[in-house]
């Protein structure tokens, strides 16, 4: 077993390898392998795996990629991630990726799929319309058709026919992946000092750009390490971060929140890897239906899923309660409509429920966060002061 430090360092390197080296090597190792890039938030990677492909999460260039060409495509009042993704593409970082999937999360990602088409980037470009109708016989069927469409594109490249057996096997691998990620969060709920949120972030983000089998092997070892009583507890409050599901904050900001006096016991940074709660059935002869059922019945709340039948404010309040958190930090990428339009819904409800929160905005390429750090520090101090006051949740 590798040391925890060694594992974290490996993940750190993979997570921000904007040349996607491991994916490229994996593809070259065997004939017929296909790489499929997908944008935030969620895509059922099982489908690509079963088709002999590897899903590569493209989360933008963060503060590690200078934007020169991408800015010419986007006005200043549009979030940063589309320009950094485009920059990666125009600088040929994505050349070995065969096709691209743009999940339906907002109009910016949707229209970015059009720019990819226009620029003829990749062998296929698929805007993946997730259903907003949650009846299995209507939205569920449509979702299966969307997945079949992706499988068809991959088959055109490598000729692989996806069988129920292959798909069930792939689902099993991702079930295990999600299970171990949740284990890490569950351990951290009690013992957040065993692994910093920055390390968790690197570990999960690495899983978006390396084969799932390799990621699972890493997670197995990480889980073993954190079962041990390691690290020193500090006097920090526990908080949940919400709203940062697409464009990612710079790692320095993720770190700064904990340094400023908060243990982050849950977050939505890598929501896509945690979107499905619990396992997807691996025993059926209709695995696409199983994936679609899981999406309909077992999805985490998200800004991109119409929620009036299952309001998100109560879902987040439940997470806060279950994790024993003291409050919430709403972190939104600047100009991120889905996140910013949700903010008043959450905040008005939390005012009523007595859940404490603060909110700020960030941009992936900005790594100066003195003001945010101060704001978080004050938030943490104020909660510590009120420690004895009861907090009413759901």
């Amino acid at each position: 077993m590798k040391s925890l430090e060694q594992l974290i360092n490996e993940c750190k390197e993979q997570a921000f390898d904007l040349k996607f080296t491991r994916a490229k090597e994996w593809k070259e190792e065997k004939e017929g392998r296909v790489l499929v890039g997908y944008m935030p938030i969620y895509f059922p990677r099982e489908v690509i795996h079963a088709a002999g492909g590897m899903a590569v999460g493209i989360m933008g260039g963060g503060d590690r990629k200078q934007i020169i060409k991408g800015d010419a495509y986007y006005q200043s009042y549009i979030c940063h991630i589309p320009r950094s993704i485009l920059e990666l593409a125009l600088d040929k970082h994505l050349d070995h990726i065969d096709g691209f999937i743009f999940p339906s999360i907002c109009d910016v990602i949707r229209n970015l799929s059009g720019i990819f088409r226009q620029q003829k980037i990749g062998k296929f470009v698929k805007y993946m319309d997730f259903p907003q109708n949650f009846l299995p016989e209507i939205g569920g069927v449509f979702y299966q058709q969307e997945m079949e469409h992706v499988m068809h594109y991959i088959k055109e490249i490598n000729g692989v026919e996806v069988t129920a057996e292959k798909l069930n096997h792939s689902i099993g691998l991702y079930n295990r992946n999600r299970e171990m990620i949740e284990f890490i969060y569950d351990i951290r709920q009690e013992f957040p000092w065993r692994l910093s949120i920055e390390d968790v972030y690197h570990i999960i983000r690495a899983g978006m750009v390396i084969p799932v089998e390799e990621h699972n092997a890493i997670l197995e070892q990480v889980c073993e390490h954190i079962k041990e009583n390691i690290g020193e507890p500090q006097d920090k409050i526990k908080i949940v971060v919400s709203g940062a599901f697409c464009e990612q904050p710079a790692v320095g900001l993720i770190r700064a929140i904990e340094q400023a006096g908060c243990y982050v016991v849950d977050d939505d940074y890598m929501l896509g890897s945690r979107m499905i709660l619990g396992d997807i059935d691996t025993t059926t002869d209709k695995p696409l239906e199983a994936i679609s059922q899981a999406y309909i019945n077992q999805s985490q709340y998200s800004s991109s899923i119409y929620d009036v039948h299952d309001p998100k404010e109560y879902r987040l309040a439940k997470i806060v309660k279950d994790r024993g958190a003291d409050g919430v930090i709403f972190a939104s990428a600047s100009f991120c409509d889905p996140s910013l339009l949700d903010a008043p819904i959450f905040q008005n409800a939390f005012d009523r429920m007595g859940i404490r929160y603060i909110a700020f905005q960030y941009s992936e390429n900005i790594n100066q966060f003195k003001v945010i750090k101060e704001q978080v520090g004050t938030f943490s101090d104020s909660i510590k002061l009120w420690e004895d006051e009861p907090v009413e949740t759901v």
Partner: protein
Amino acid sequence: MAQEAQKEKSMIIQKEMVSGLFNDLAKAKETGKKVCYTFIPGNLSELIRVFDMLIVYPEINALQSAMRKKSATYIKEAERHAHSEDVCTYVKCDVGMMLKGNIGPTGEKIPEPDVLLLSYTGCFTFMKWFETLKREYPNAEVIMIHTPYQENAEMTPQMTQYMVKQLKEVVIPKFEKVTGIKYDEAKLKRHLELSAEAEDWITKIFDTTKHRPSPIDAYFAGVYYIGPINIGFRGTQQAVDYYKELYKEIMLRVEQGLGPITPEGEMKEEKFRLVVEGPPNWTNFREFWKIFYDMGAVIVASSYTKVGGVYDMGWRHDPSRPLEALAEYCMNCYTNLNLPQRVDLLAKCIEDYEADGYLTNSIKSCNSFSAGQLGMMREIEDRLEVPVGFIESDLVDPRYFSYSNIKNRLESYFQMLEQRKLIKAHEAAEA
């Protein structure tokens, strides 16, 4: 002037239609009619009519508030309630209006919704908007009909079926439940026949910009022309009559060789013909328009007039396939087209209407239009070698309308067009 008197006839009809609508809304409680809130893109007017409901369009309220200079107050009110400065200002204007008592453009209180019908077409913000409204109106029946995006520049049978199933199994049963009225397909078909007729007329109207001078401005006046077809009258004889009358008036202008009518009378000389992408600014609409007509610029086509439906490529509501027609209508609205489709459509307009330039009015708070506009502009410039221009404003937030900036930019742009014309004329003379 005789022409202006004729012009006024269609305007009078339109005014009567709109005020009738607001009167009906004001009397909704007395008449017991149910009220349905829905959006313009993908609006299911014909189906809503079958159930005899009255319609409220939140975006229309927002733009009307802006034209009446009330939007700034509403937006500030919403921002006081945790709404970000950087999101769609239509949403904030609507929320602010609601927080201030929901007094509509006519000064009457807008009735609360019995139904929130989200035909989720072409804009992600619509979904967030209705999530917000649902929290304000917990008793309203919420109905979501998800319109798939034309990501591959097509409406596949699967996409249509997905929508038809939603109509049959979700929308119609819920309408029946709320109104107590049974679904009557024959009635729907009759409305759809009238829709197709109105669509024929409006297509002919926007096609008159082929003439030189163009008898109409397809953007600044165009936004008035699309009113009836977009705000619930599609599918009625009234709309057909209005468009017939309007067409007659416009053709009279063509016969007389007249240019468009502006708020300051007839435009005398047509110097530049433009195609415009993006919605207009509403807070300073008149000032904005004036910059164009003062410079002799007429808009011969615009994408904005296609948000409530794209009819110029031949698509019509087909009464023989009523639910399929509604589904296709939703999928075929402008912002539900993928970017290459949008480029093709605008390129066709530039060619068909012999435009001298292509101008983008980029709206700060509207990602549905704005994200990708620069890429579209580059493509059009490369493909057609047409001079492109770019300005920025906002729909209903006056803080983002900078008159001097826009005017300066447009002046430089028109100078460029002028020079290009001279060069072309020179080349033609030499050839």
